[in-house]
């Protein structure tokens, strides 16, 4: 049997086919990564089954109210959103009872929180508040916690929070536990 040489396949158009596919993927691709503020909702309990919560001292609660015109009322005072971050940091870092050994620059005011473990941020908004404002407030509150944690991480380990190991991160998180309580919105007007 005479062996016939196989004719060579012309691969000249391969590049064209690949280009075609490439352009298709270039057009359909969306490069945006999904990112956002992550929160955990409290489990649902019917109103009649609400358990009695132990009372919390008023000075340990940092009240933030947002009305339907997107104005802030923080601790019964009007406040600009730009000042919220520093006010929150000051409240969390107040160290009123002196038990917080790592709070630096604490004001130790008797009218503010005892220590970061007891400090609670209470957020309530109106049904008419815009989502944008709500996100801005959430962002500023989260930023206050993150900044305090970052500062502590720098002092304790000389590294940024993101560079720490998981145990070290948890230790820093326990030092400044993020407690943001959201009340159900009302019509404050």
């Amino acid at each position, binding site marked *: 049997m005479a062996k016939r040489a196989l004719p060579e396949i012309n691969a000249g158009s391969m590049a064209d086919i690949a280009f075609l596919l490439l352009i298709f993927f270039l057009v359909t691709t969306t490069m945006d990564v999904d990112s956002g*503020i992550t929160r955990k909702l409290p*489990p649902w309990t019917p109103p009649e089954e609400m358990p009695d919560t132990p009372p919390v001292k008023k000075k340990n609660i940092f009240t933030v109210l947002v009305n339907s015109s997107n104005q802030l009322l923080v601790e019964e005072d009007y406040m600009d959103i730009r000042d919220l971050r520093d006010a929150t940091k000051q409240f969390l870092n107040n160290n009123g009872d002196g038990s917080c050994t790592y709070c630096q620059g604490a004001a130790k005011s008797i009218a503010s929180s005892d220590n970061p473990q007891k400090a609670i941020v209470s957020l309530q908004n109106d049904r008419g508040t815009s989502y944008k404002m709500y996100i801005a407030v959430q962002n500023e509150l989260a930023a206050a916690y993150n900044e305090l944690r970052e500062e502590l991480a720098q002092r304790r380990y000389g590294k940024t929070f993101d560079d720490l190991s998981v145990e070290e991160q948890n230790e820093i998180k326990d030092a400044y536990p993020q407690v943001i309580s959201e009340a159900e919105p009302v019509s404050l007007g």
Partner: protein
Amino acid sequence: MSKFRKKQGGETPAISTASLPDIVFMLLFFFMVTTVMREITLKVENAKPFATEIKKLERKSLVTYIYVGKPKAAYLSQVGAEPRIQLNDAFARVKELQQFVITEREAINEAERPLMTVSIKADGQVKMGLVTDIKQELRKANSLKINYSTRKGDVYED
């Protein structure tokens, strides 16, 4: 002498394009791997607010999206101008949310169900009343991990 004469008749040689398909394939594979197909067509306006303290959402297969915003101009005549919820490809009511989330959760592998995250992609102009209703429905559906989808940027800007 003949050695030198050879050169004079030469033209510029054609550049070999033999490696062109390889280069193109390389690019092609890059885009094939990184691409995320747009699964749905947005029917609502979706200008997400800005924030700085954001985390990236990992594991896209475990994320369920809820779009909230004013209907786009083409749908104004059908559903009106009030902000609406969009689930997959259709407008939905708040009451339908619970069922939707439960169905989505059933579709996920049982071991990974607790990791499911609901991403709320709401327009900045939406009022909190609607967002709160959504959150209450999510609580009832026991889907507690949520993510407020935002863009990275300054929060103070108007």
